[in-house]
């Protein structure tokens, strides 16, 4: 693991350019450019708020902040996984011709989504101001939570980008799986809504430990429980170690299967 990481570090200029490339290409064609990163979650938030607070009459105070604070980390995870699974397949022509640490492509893609997440925190803070939910010192845990989220997601993406090379239906399976996972993760409903026993089952979902802290920091205004943060850290490191192990064991075969 240390070897892979130090090799990636040597190519950090390449990683930075790949991240910049992702961001540029994502927004070059759109009139609104980077503003889109901020508008998109706001629009989703408005729709969800309209549906849940006004149509279904869910009783949650400051529903927009409640939903947006969990939606942003979830979107980061989901978009990284969908896009990241395809990074090896999409960069085939480069992999065929240039010798670079191959893991740099999935890592750069996840990182470009992290930049998006950071930008999307700006409208979240704006909504909080407007609705009178002031940011609290609980946000001190934010860097840790972002790092854990990035690490966990990168591990998952490394595994999926490897499998996508060998099995052509991974992308479709991932999509279905993410839809199910979205409802299994407390994003549009509070975890406290669930009965005690169900809650214990839902706590087996690792993604919960990366989404819930954001809601606790931004919406509830408190530092997430130390045990939850420790679990998130452990899961993140395990995920990255597994991801790198799977990737390294298979990467020399990529070109045999890409054609």
């Amino acid at each position: 693991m240390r070897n892979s990481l130090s090799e990636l570090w040597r190519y950090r200029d390449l990683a930075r350019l790949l991240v910049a490339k992702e961001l540029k290409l994502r927004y070059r064609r759109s009139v609104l450019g980077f503003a889109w990163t901020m508008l998109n979650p706001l629009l989703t938030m408005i729709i969800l708020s309209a549906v849940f607070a006004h149509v279904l009459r869910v009783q949650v105070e400051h529903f927009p902040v409640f939903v947006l604070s969990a939606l942003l980390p979830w979107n980061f995870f989901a978009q990284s996984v969908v896009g990241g699974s395809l990074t090896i397949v999409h960069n085939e022509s480069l992999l065929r011709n240039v010798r670079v640490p191959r893991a740099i492509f999935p890592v750069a893609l996840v990182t470009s989504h992290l930049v998006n997440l950071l930008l999307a925190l700006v409208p979240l803070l704006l909504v909080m101001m407007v609705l009178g939910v002031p940011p609290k010192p609980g946000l001190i845990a934010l860097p840790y939570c972002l790092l854990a989220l990035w690490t966990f997601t990168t591990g998952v993406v490394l595994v999926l980008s490897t499998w996508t090379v060998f099995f052509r239906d991974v992308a479709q399976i991932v999509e279905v799986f993410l839809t199910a996972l979205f409802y299994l993760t407390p994003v549009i409903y509070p975890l406290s809504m669930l009965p005690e026993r169900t809650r214990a089952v839902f706590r087996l979902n690792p993604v919960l430990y990366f989404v819930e802290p954001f809601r606790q920091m931004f919406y509830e205004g408190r530092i997430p429980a130390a045990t939850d943060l420790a679990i998130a850290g452990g899961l993140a490191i395990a995920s990255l170690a597994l991801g790198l192990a799977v990737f390294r064991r298979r990467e020399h075969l990529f070109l045999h299967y890409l054609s």
Partner: protein
Amino acid sequence: MKTASASVPPVRVRDVVMEFRLVRESRLSLKEALIRALRGERTRPEQFRALDGISFDVAHGEALGIIGANGSGKTTTLRLLAGVLRPTEGSIEIEGRVTTLIDLGAGFNPELSGGENVYLAGALYGFSQAEMRGKFDRIVAFAGLEKFIDVPVKNYSSGMSARLGFALATDVDPDVLIVDEVIGVGDAEFQARCFDRMRRFRESGKTIVFVSHDLATVRSFCDRAILLRHGRSIREGSAEEVVAAYESGLGRADS
């Protein structure tokens, strides 16, 4: 060991075997793989030997040509030298920085401008941004693309992207340069400048491996050549002699 490095050839290929799995249809789906696994079927993929035990050295300042019919193993040899494939058996040792000129333009991102691609490609070759800033103007000038450097590469002609690719790959100053037939894309004047640059390259002690169907170029540019057929080296010697053997019919796919 440092004193010996002048005499030790920088490229050493020993008994290299490269096998690929024959993937007949498109890739398996995960669903099919699971069903087969549950039924206890183990599919053993058929192997295809692209290279069957080849060995060669390339010395400092030497240009080696690799020729052969389609499917003889030229491209596989190139990719092994570039380090993107790992040999099934045997060993490949290369000293110094290797730069590949395969499939130029394929590596460029069509949506990015020529200039953005230069920086990206430089980073792919392992250079820092600071190093690339020092090379940038020279690369653009050699490619003759000063006016078009901010235009997306998708609007380039194939000649323009090949020129940019060549300018890039030779300016990164590799110790070993691997060239596929890419130079043919440019016009006569550009080709002449390419060969001029490659000649100076060789004179400064750098090593060149040249893979081509263009027998005239191999004959005039390379010192030595290898003729491949079905993944084996069937003739090795001076470029003149090996090209002549190939022209007389040796190593053709149907021979």
